[in-house]
């Protein structure tokens, strides 16, 4: 009984670097992993800083939307990809972030960063609460539970009209650039929010990388692969799932707060069921259980509908988008990230280790074993 558990946990991300066996070598590899993560983060921050100097106007606005979407997808990927808990309610957490931030900023006069942090805490708590019934549910039933969260959220916002302005929406929640940046006007605000969102995305990626490199990360993957076996191995199922739901919710709230900051207008319909489903599609198309995949997913979420409507007029744009999803799933069943990894390995002349995918076909129960 214990053998498969050891195998599962040992092959979990980030695989060799944190495998308990190996002593000093593993520690060295672990340090190297941290250094590599820091280097990538530094590169990420530099790229984020320079993008507004290269790209401006509408493309920067689209990139900002993609960055914000990537943060939300990253959170959902933690829950669905790494922990195997399907969720069709992620947009509700974006909504919590957007509304809590907006209310605290507009009505209570808080600073935007503080308001967003508080909204993340609130979403974390809501996520933990959602995880309580989720302990007893799996697969389709879990999906229905999270669906209920997603469906109920806009109604709750409408009922709290006194605070949220109901369906008329909240307006004027922009986060202006501080004077020392020299950024002025609407485009200055756009650049500022892009920098902030980019920095948040880099930090969120680092958080995910480190989380998945830790004991918690291996526990998440163990739960995804075989919950009974994970429990037998002493993994605290309830606490680990609660953490996954909470962190996913907090990252969703961060994305929601940034959405409000960038657009300045929030309405209940922006955080409905359709958005939740599209985010789930973005996880699958980008690459399940992959940080890079989350970035691709965020880009897919924003750019494919945009270019679909460039290619086709009116309702045909929806058909083109649907076609793009089908093509992506057939051409890249492990997501865009999996496709690129395969291509890179072929380029380098390596034969791809098929055992990773053949052991774990993607599904809601066991989406994928690959990580990045």
């Amino acid at each position: 009984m214990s053998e498969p558990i050891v195998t599962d946990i040992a092959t979990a991300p980030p695989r060799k670097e944190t495998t308990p066996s190996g002593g000093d070598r593993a520690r060295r590899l672990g340090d190297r992993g941290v250094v590599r993560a820091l280097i990538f983060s530094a590169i990420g921050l530099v790229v984020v800083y320079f993008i507004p100097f290269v790209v401006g106007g509408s493309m920067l606005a689209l990139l900002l939307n993609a960055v914000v979407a990537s943060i939300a997808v990253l959170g959902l990927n933690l829950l669905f990809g790494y922990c195997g808990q399907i969720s069709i309610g992620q947009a509700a957490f974006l909504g919590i972030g957007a509304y809590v931030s907006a209310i605290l900023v507009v009505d209570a006069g808080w600073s935007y960063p503080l308001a967003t942090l508080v909204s993340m805490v609130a979403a974390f708590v809501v996520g933990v609460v959602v995880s309580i019934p989720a302990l007893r549910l799996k697969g389709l039933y879990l999906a229905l539970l999270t669906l209920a969260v997603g469906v109920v959220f806009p109604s709750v916002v409408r009922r709290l009209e006194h605070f949220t302005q109901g369906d008329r929406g909240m307006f004027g929640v922009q986060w202006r650039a501080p004077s020392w940046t020299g950024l002025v006007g609407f485009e200055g605000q756009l650049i500022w929010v892009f920098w902030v969102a980019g920095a948040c995305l880099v930090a969120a990626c680092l958080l995910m990388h480190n989380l998945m490199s830790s004991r918690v990360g291996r526990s998440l993957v163990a739960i995804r692969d075989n919950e009974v076996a994970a429990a037998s191995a002493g993994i605290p199922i309830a606490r680990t799932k609660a953490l996954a739901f909470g962190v996913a919710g907090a990252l969703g709230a961060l994305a929601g707060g940034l959405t409000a900051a960038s657009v300045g207008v929030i309405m209940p319909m922006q955080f409905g069921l359709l958005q939740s489903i599209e985010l789930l599609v973005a996880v699958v198309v980008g690459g399940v259980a992959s940080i890079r995949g989350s970035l691709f997913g965020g880009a897919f979420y924003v750019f494919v509908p945009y270019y679909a409507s460039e290619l086709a007029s009116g309702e045909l744009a929806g058909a083109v988008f649907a076609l793009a999803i089908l093509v992506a799933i057939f051409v890249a069943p492990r997501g865009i990230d999996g496709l690129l990894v395969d291509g890179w390995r072929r380029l380098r002349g390596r034969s791809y280790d098929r055992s990773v995918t053949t052991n774990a076909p993607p599904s809601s129960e066991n989406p994928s074993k690959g990580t990045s």
Partner: protein
Amino acid sequence: MKLRPLGLCAATFLVASTLTACGSPQGGSDSDSSAACPADASKTVGDTIKLGSTMPLSGQLASVGQNRAGVEALVDSVNADGGIDGKKLELTVLDDKGDPARAVSNVQRLISKEGVDALVAVTTTPVNLAIAEFAVEQCVPNLFALTGDERFTAGQFKGMIPASNPYDTQAKALIEDIVDEHGDDTKIGLLQAENDSGAGLGDSLKRAAGEAGLTILPAQTVAPTDSAPPTSQVSALKDEADVLVMLVSPFQCPPALQAVGRSGWQPPVYTSDFCAYPGILEPAGDLANGVRSVNWIVDPTDAANQGRDDVKAYLSAIKGKAPEVAVTSFAETGYVSAAGAIAYIKSIAEQGDLTRQALFDGVESVDGLDVPLLFDGITVRTSKGKVSPWSAVNVIEYRDGTYSSVRQVAVD
């Protein structure tokens, strides 16, 4: 050295938060205090007048995007007639799916890349709220924007003419008719969509009813995308309400009328301008007869209007460019919006040098502007300040595939 993973993350967040903590949030758009216009705003418009728009051409609100057919039809016909003072019109319409974030990107592209001289028929309230600040900052006029939200008539946004009648104006006209027809002790049942327009109209109606001393029962709501007959909501209203007011999306009007018919209730029914078009009400058949609403645009298919030159021009321009149902609804609205914008641009061109700055500044002093397809006696004026740009609105009654005017209510 082994760095603690969570400690590393916390440190990164701390640095990010510290770096960003100096941001000073400012609630509300202070568009009136915008700095001077960009230098290119005072350049004379070239051989082509560039117009741009963003609207939901796909997604849940795609039906509203049929405005585009009307806008394009008018631009084509103006170009066929030689343009404005010899300048051809060039129109770019982008799809925003009703998403404000996407609309911001679209408008940046329209202004910064396409170099539009004016925005025309930008559709939905959230989108207009989201793009307003950038348009004002760049001194690009937002002409005949399709939103009735009162926030656009409060003088908050410079350079903007809303094309929909404000919710307060519609509510005033409906309440005036209800009082005249049914007395001032009428109890009003309210069926309201859970979206920005339903909520905005509902609030306006409650205010107007309160001023007239009428009672409004607690509103029954329908989800904005729900196309099923609202049977339970109608049942909740039928025993107490004397009059039913439906503030729902266009596609929800026929199912709502079916629910009323099935319940055996025969109340006088009023709707907002969303359902004030034959193409919208026709699927409800006889149940739609007698429904009253507000509109400022004539029915182009009504035999009584066939002699009007503007109706002939519209039907000729729109032929083959829009679905039949849109000819008497969204396409017509788009056409009127574009016609208003072009009439305004012509009026500015007649005053002298046509520049973007002149178009932007002139928005505040429009008076007596004639726009095609409006009921007689209605003109556009913005010189009165914080009120509707339309000088009046008509209460109309639908019957057998067309509608006729019942009364005209002046907007002051």
